[in-house]
């Protein structure tokens, strides 16, 4: 029986093709916008999360100043760390490997050009060297890693070597950092992505050399801790925070430093992305609402036009519920067809954006095409259609057969 109602409803929709398609268009645009935006923002979130996961979730970053995203924020803050702060936390229980680095913006001269760029001073002893070798951000494309004993030598990220200057750097190139000559001994592999982009642009030099360049005796830009297996990252982070609070003599809540675990950084990113996503989808939902109103309008018109038919169907035994069902199926179909086309084109737009982004080496813009999104969007479109059709359908079903037949 329900199939027959579908057949009747479908016949009514195809009777007025142009109007049906225009109505479908309203839903189609709304769903396309929602699906496209969700697909891209979800894809971006997934890509970011997997990048973070690749970096490892057992990291703690301690930087001077208030809470921020990693060590960079520390360089803008008035509060500073010294090697003594590092000494206070490097041996706390649960810490496997610890690194204190010094980073600052410097003038880099290569050939005839001078550019401003971030320079990072890393400590290089044989134990840390083994650790660095396991990190993808230290993968070498050309040349070699810095090693203990190097002084005015530099490792350059792929971007800094190839894109920062008109001329490309090679192993053996000479660069000047704040006027001091360095020899490029290694060029890193390209990382790409959002987290990798920062690394690609870094110039890494031994920490002792950085002290000479920036003329800072024992300042520390940031402290990285890797948590040993078997310890909770959060516990270690809390211990480090307590220790540092005591060492720097500040009260809880008034810290002039921040301790962030990988999980917290991920959560912060997710939160920002979540807000962006909500705003975008909210805007797209408005167009979907307009599409729904379009369906309602079409259905009201349809009820008025088909009043006589409703009377006929009632006279041959259609109950109110049957009439209502036919009209609901009609509006639901409008929604579902719009939803199907909208999902397909939304995913198409997502994939297109992904493709275009790839042409510009942006790998983090990946369209998410998961089943829940597809099914959810189509179901949503059908529901929008059915809800928009509810009032017209009730109106149709309540028509009095005698009045309806007289039309």
């Amino acid at each position, binding site marked *: 029986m329900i199939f027959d109602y579908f057949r009747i409803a479908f016949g009514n929709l195809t009777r007025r093709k142009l109007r049906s398609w225009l109505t479908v268009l309203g839903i189609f645009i709304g769903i396309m916008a929602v699906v496209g935006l969700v697909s891209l923002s979800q894809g971006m979130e997934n890509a970011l999360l997997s990048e973070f996961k690749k970096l490892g979730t057992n990291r703690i970053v301690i930087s001077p100043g208030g809470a921020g995203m990693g060590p960079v924020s520390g360089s803008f803050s008035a509060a500073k760390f010294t090697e003594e702060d590092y000494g206070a936390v490097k041996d706390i229980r649960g810490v496997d490997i610890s690194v204190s680095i010094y980073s600052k913006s410097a003038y880099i001269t290569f050939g005839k050009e001078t550019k401003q760029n971030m320079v990072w001073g890393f400590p290089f002893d044989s134990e840390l060297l083994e650790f660095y070798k396991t990190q993808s951000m230290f993968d070498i494309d050309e040349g070699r890693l810095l090693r203990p004993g190097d002084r005015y030598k530099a490792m350059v990220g792929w971007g800094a070597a190839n894109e920062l200057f008109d001329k490309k750097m090679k192993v053996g190139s000479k660069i000047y950092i704040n006027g001091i000559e360095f020899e490029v001994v290694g060029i890193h592999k390209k990382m790409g992505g959002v987290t990798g982009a920062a690394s690609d642009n870094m110039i890494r030099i031994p920490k002792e050399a950085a002290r000479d360049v920036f003329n800072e005796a024992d300042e520390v830009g940031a402290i990285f801790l890797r948590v040993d297996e078997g310890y909770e990252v959060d516990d270690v982070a809390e211990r480090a925070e307590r220790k540092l609070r005591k060492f720097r003599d500040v009260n809880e809540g008034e810290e002039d430093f921040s301790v962030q675990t990988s999980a917290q950084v991920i959560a912060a990113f997710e939160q920002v992305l979540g807000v962006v996503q909500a705003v975008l989808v909210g805007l797209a939902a408005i167009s979907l609402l307009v599409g729904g109103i379009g369906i309602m309008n079409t259905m009201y018109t349809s009820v008025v036009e088909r009043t006589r*038919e409703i009377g006929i169907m*009632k006279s041959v035994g259609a109950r109110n519920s049957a009439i209502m069902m036919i009209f609901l199926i009609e509006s639901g179909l409008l929604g579902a067809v719009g939803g199907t086309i909208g999902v397909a084109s939304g995913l198409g737009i997502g994939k297109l954006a992904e493709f275009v982004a790839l042409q510009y080496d942006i790998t983090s813009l990946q369209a998410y095409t998961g089943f829940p999104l597809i099914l959810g969007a189509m179901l949503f479109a059908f529901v929008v259609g059915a809800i928009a059709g509810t009032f017209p359908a009730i109106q149709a079903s309540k028509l009095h057969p005698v009045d309806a037949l007289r039309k």
Partner: protein
Amino acid sequence: MAKKRQKAQGKQGGASQKKLRPMVIRLKDVWKVYQMGEVEVPALRGLNLEIRDGEFVAIMGPSGSGKSTAMNMIGCLDIPTRGRIELDSQDISQLSESDLAQIRGRRIGFIFQQFNLIPTLTALENVMLPMTFQGMPAADRKERAIKLLDMVELEDRMHHKPSELSGGQQQRVAIARALANDPEVILADEPTGNLDSKTGSIVMDFLKRLNCDEDKTIIMVTHDEDVARNAQRIELLRDGVVASSSKGNMGQLPCPEKKG
């Protein structure tokens, strides 16, 4: 077999034997008052009407006599303001719209002046529609619809839409549709009103055969005296009550023979 016997009785015995058959429809002091703004306009003023099983009754009357209102009442399309309407001794004057729909679908077949076929559906689908609303399985529906279209000699036109059929053909589709759920009563509202006299008489022959061969009770509303004379009995309505009652030609003339 039973039908054959009844038919034979009807032919030989005429009206006197038919009177013994049970009452199908009984209107008792039926009032219908329409509210036109401040004014109450009565369309029926205590109408009394009795129709027995197997009868062919014409309801006549000038416009404003209440014959359309009376038809709506008999067809369960509307309920009276006051009074009692019985269908097979069941009081239907207080039923809800959905219950009335159910009764209409099963026990009454409508034939309208405007044919009133659904324009998007084919002839076959139009005939199947009343069975759809009764939840009959699709295969049974189709089989019966084809049989009915065959009966009105339109089996070669069953996949045509109403717009591709002539007026007479559309009305025959409507007759087939009226018979879909094998109702006891066929209610025809000016069935030949939109047809020329030739196609009109073909349609009228179909109606007469339904009464003779299928033993259906037929109630026909018309303002045309010639058309009304096809019935056994003519009830003349005036000002919402029966003004006079007379005999028609039906029962005195033989049933029309099936053509072809």
